[in-house]
C-alpha cells in the first residue's frame, strides 16, 4: 500500500475541562472519501480544524506524505494543500460570485482586471461544479446549496489536495445533496482526498469509501464503507443501548375533525400555495412531503395564521385562526416550529430565558418577575438538553442544533391543539431528533393534530398517520401511511398526479 497522504497520530485537544480529542489517530489517503462520523460534540470538527491549522493540538503529530508539519494558521494549511468548507460560509453576500472567487485567489491583486486569465483561473472549478450558476450574480441571491458550491470552488481554486467538508448536507435539500455526492465522487476519482464530517448515515451510504466513527473525542470504530450496517454505525455513534426505540404513534382515537383547512390560498415572498384542503382529527399526524421550496413555508405560515390568506379558511376547533383573526400574532392553541429558527423563531440579541418565554410575553405583568422567567427557562433548558445551559446567554451564541432545541422547548412544552413543525429535526443528531419526535408524538397523544413538514421521507413513512405531498404550491395527494408507496410519492413530488402515473 502506498504511503498515506496525511497522517494524524495521537492528537489530543482540551478546551478548559472538556477533552475534545483524546489520542485520536487517523490517516487520509489520496483518491478516497473518508467519512468522519459522529454525533454533535463527538470531536470531529475539532480534529479537522486542528488539521486545518485553526486550532493547535495539545499533543500529537501531523505529517503529510511522511513529513511532520505543524500549522499555526489556516493560511499555512492551505499552502500545504488542505482546504476546508465550513458550515458557516465565508462569502461576501454583496459581491458577485466572480468577485468572491477572485478575492480568494492566492496573491489576489489589488486591481482586478476582468476577462483575463485570472478570471478563467477563478472560474475553472465553478464551471465544472455548477455551470448553471451565473458568476455575475450577487452571492446574496444564491440559495444555500449554490453558496456551498461556490465555497467549494473557492477552496478547490487553491489547489487543495485534501478537501474537508463540515456537515455539508445539513443545509441541503435531497436533490442538492445528490448533486454534492456526485461532485465528491468526481473529486475523489481525480485524486483528491475528501473528508466528509457528518452525522448522517445517508451521506456515508452515498459516497464514502471508508468510515471512522468518533464518540466523546475518541475513535470508536474504523471500517470500509461496505463493512458496516446502518444499525451498527448508529450504535457506534451513540453508544450501545443509548438509542431507545421509538414506536409509531397510536392511531387517532376519533375521526371528528379538529382542524379543517378549506380552499386555502396564500402568498409569501412570491411563494404561492393554492387551494389547500384537508381535515385532521385530534391526535392525527399529517406528514407533508415534497422538495423544499414548493410552498412549504407559505403553507406553514398560513396555517399558523401569521400571514393574510388570499382565499379559504383555517378552522381549528370550530374557530377560524386564519391570518386576519389574530392580526398576525399566533393563537395560543397553535405551536409553530418554523424553518430557519434564527430568522423566524428567536430574537438573536435576547437571552435564552426571554426567548423561551416569548409565547407568554404579551401577557407578562407590567413589571415581569425575572426570577420566574429564568426559573422556568432553566427547567426547559435542562429538559431539552440545550447547550450551553445558561439562561442569560444570548440566543445568537447557540449553534443551529441547539437553537432548534430551544424553539422546540418553547413551542411543544405547553398544551396546544395544533402543532406545525417545519423540518423540526434539521441540524439535530440522531438522539436529539428522536427526542423531538417524542415531544411531537406526545402532543399528538394528548389530542393535538400535527402538521409535520419534512424531507425525511423515511421518517414520514414510519411515523405519520397520513402523508400529503406538496408540489408547486398544491397538494398532489394525501395517502394513509399503510397505503403509501415510495414510487407514487416520488412521482407526486416531481409534480405528476396519481392518475397520470
Amino acid at each position: 500500500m502506498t504511503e498515506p497522504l496525511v497522517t494524524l497520530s495521537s492528537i489530543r485537544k482540551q478546551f478548559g475541562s472538556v477533552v475534545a480529542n483524546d489520542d485520536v489517530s487517523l490517516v487520509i489517503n489520496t483518491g478516497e472519501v473518508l467519512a468522519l462520523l459522529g454525533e454533535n460534540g463527538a470531536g470531529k470538527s475539532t480534529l479537522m480544524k486542528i488539521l486545518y491549522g485553526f486550532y493547535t493540538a495539545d499533543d500529537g503529530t501531523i505529517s503529510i506524505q511522511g513529513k511532520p508539519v505543524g500549522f499555526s494558521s489556516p493560511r499555512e494549511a492551505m499552502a500545504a494543500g488542505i482546504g476546508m468548507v465550513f458550515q458557516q460560509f465565508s462569502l461576501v453576500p454583496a459581491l458577485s460570485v466572480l468577485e468572491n472567487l477572485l478575492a480568494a485567489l492566492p496573491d489576489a491583486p489589488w486591481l482586478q482586471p476582468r476577462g483575463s486569465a485570472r478570471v478563467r483561473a477563478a472560474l475553472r472549478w465553478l464551471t465544472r461544479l455548477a455551470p448553471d450558476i451565473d458568476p455575475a450574480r450577487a452571492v446574496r441571491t444564491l440559495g444555500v446549496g449554490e453558496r456551498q458550491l461556490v465555497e467549494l470552488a473557492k477552496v478547490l481554486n487553491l489547489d487543495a489536495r485534501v478537501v474537508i467538508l463540515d456537515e455539508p448536507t445539513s443545509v441541503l435539500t435531497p436533490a442538492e445533496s445528490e448533486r454534492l455526492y456526485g461532485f465528491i465522487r468526481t473529486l475523489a476519482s481525480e485524486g483528491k482526498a475528501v473528508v466528509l464530517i457528518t452525522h448522517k448515515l445517508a451521506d456515508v451510504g452515498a459516497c464514502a469509501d471508508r468510515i471512522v466513527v468518533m464518540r466523546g473525542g475518541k475513535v470508536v470504530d474504523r471500517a470500509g464503507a461496505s463493512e458496516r450496517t446502518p444499525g451498527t454505525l448508529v450504535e457506534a455513534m451513540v453508544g450501545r443501548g443509548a438509542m431507545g426505540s421509538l414506536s409509531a404513534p397510536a392511531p387517532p382515537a376519533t375521526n371528528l375533525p379538529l382542524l379543517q383547512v378549506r380552499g386555502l390560498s396564500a402568498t409569501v415572498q412570491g411563494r404561492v400555495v393554492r387551494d389547500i384542503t384537508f381535515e385532521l382529527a385530534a391526535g392525527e399526524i399529517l406528514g407533508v412531503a415534497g422538495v423544499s421550496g414548493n410552498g412549504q413555508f407559505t403553507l406553514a405560515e398560513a396555517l399558523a395564521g401569521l400571514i393574510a390568506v388570499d382565499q379559504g379558511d383555517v378552522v381549528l376547533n370550530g374557530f377560524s385562526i386564519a391570518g386576519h383573526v389574530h392580526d398576525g400574532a399566533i393563537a395560543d392553541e397553535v405551536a409553530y416550529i418554523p424553518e430557519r429558527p434564527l430568522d423566524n423563531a428567536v430574537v438573536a440579541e435576547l437571552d435564552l430565558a426571554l426567548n423561551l418565554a416569548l409565547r407568554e410575553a404579551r401577557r407578562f405583568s407590567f413589571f415581569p418577575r425575572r426570577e420566574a422567567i429564568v426559573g422556568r427557562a432553566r427547567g426547559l433548558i435542562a429538559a431539552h438538553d440545550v447547550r450551553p445551559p445558561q439562561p442569560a446567554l444570548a440566543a445568537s451564541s447557540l449553534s443551529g442544533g441547539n437553537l432548534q432545541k430551544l424553539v422546540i422547548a418553547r413551542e411543544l412544552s405547553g398544551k396546544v391543539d395544533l402543532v406545525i413543525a417545519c423540518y423540526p429535526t434539521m441540524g439535530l443528531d440522531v438522539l436529539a431528533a428522536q427526542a423531538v419526535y417524542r415531544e411531537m408524538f406526545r402532543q399528538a397523544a394528548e389530542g393535538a393534530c400535527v402538521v409535520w413538514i419534512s424531507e425525511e421521507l423515511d421518517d414520514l413513512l414510519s411515523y405519520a398517520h397520513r402523508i400529503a405531498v406538496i408540489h408547486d404550491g398544491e397538494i398532489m395527494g394525501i395517502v394513509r401511511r399503510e397505503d403509501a408507496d415510495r414510487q407514487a410519492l416520488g412521482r407526486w413530488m416531481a409534480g405528476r398526479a396519481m392518475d397520470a402515473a
Partner: protein
Amino acid sequence: MSPATSMRIVAVIGGGAAFVIAAAIFLAAIGRPPLATLSQMVLYAFGDSYSLSESLVKATPILFCALAVILPARLGLITVGGEGQLYLGALTGTAVVVSFPAAPMILLLPAMLAAGAVGGALWGGIAGVLRARCNVNETISTLLMNYVAVLLVSYVVYGAWKDPTSLGWPATIPFPKAATVPGVFGTRAHAGLIAGILAAVILHIAVTHTRWGIALRVLAGNRKVAAMVGFDFVRQTLLVMAIGGTLAGFAGICETSAIQGRLQGGISVGYGLTGFLVAWLSGQHFLRAIPIAILVGGLIAAGDALQLYSKIPSASATILQGLLFVAALAASGAAGRRSARHE
C-alpha cells in the same frame, strides 16, 4: 469587576486622555497655552456655583434631546429630529402664551408646558407614522423636518407673533411671570433639569424592567418574531417617536420660557445634534446620558466664557466639542473591539 466593566473604565480614561492631547495640540496651534487654557475651561464649566449653573442650563436641553434619540434607538430607529421637535415644542408652547398672556400661572404654566410637549410629540409622531405606515426612513424624515420646524418659528417671529414694541427685533412678546418655568437652587438652572433627570430614570426603569421594554427589545431584534408573539411594530414606533418628541418639545418650551424669556429665531445652539451625539456616546443608555450631557453642557458654557474673558472665539469650543466626541467614540469603539476579541 467584569471584563466588560473594566474595559469601559479603560475606554473612559483612554478617551479622556486622547481628548486632552488633541485639545492641547489644537490650543497650541492657535497660540494659546494649552494646559492653562484647559484648566481655565474646567473652572469656567464647574468652578463655582455660577459656572455650574450655566453648565446645567446648557445641559438641560441636551439631555432631553439625547433622551429623544435613545428611546427610538431602543426600537432600532435612528432619529436626528431633536432640533426640530425642540423648535416645534417652543412654537406650540408659545402659542398658548401669546393667546392668553394674562392667564393666571396655575393655568398658563401647565397649559404652556403641555402644549410644548404635544407639539414635539406631533413632530416626532409624524416621522413615526411615515416610518411605520409608509416605510419612510426615519433618519431622513426627521432631518428634513428639522428645517421645517426651525423655519416655522422664524415665520411666526418675523410675522404674526412679532412683538410690536420690539423695534423690529424678530421675537414675540416677553413671557409674563405666569409663564416662566421656575428656577431651582436660586440660579438660572430651571425645573426642566430636574424633569429631565427624572425622565431619564423613569425611561431607564421602563426599558429594563417592564413588559414594554421586552416588547421594544423583541421588536428591535426580530420584527417577524415580534409580530408572531403579538407585539405591534406600528404602535410602538408611533409611541417611541411621540414620547421622544414630547421630551424634546418640552425642552424647547422650557428653554424659551426659562432662559430666553420670549420666542425668537435662535433658541437652540445645535442642542438637537449635540443630544444625538450624547446619545451615541452613552451607548443609547438613559442613565449614562445624564453625566455626559452635563459634561458637554459644561464644555459649551466654558466656550462662551472663554470668548467673554479670554477672547478666544466661541467656535473654538465647538471644535473642542468635536474633538471630545471623536476621541470618546474612537476610544469606546476600540475598547469594544478589544473586548470582542477577548471573548
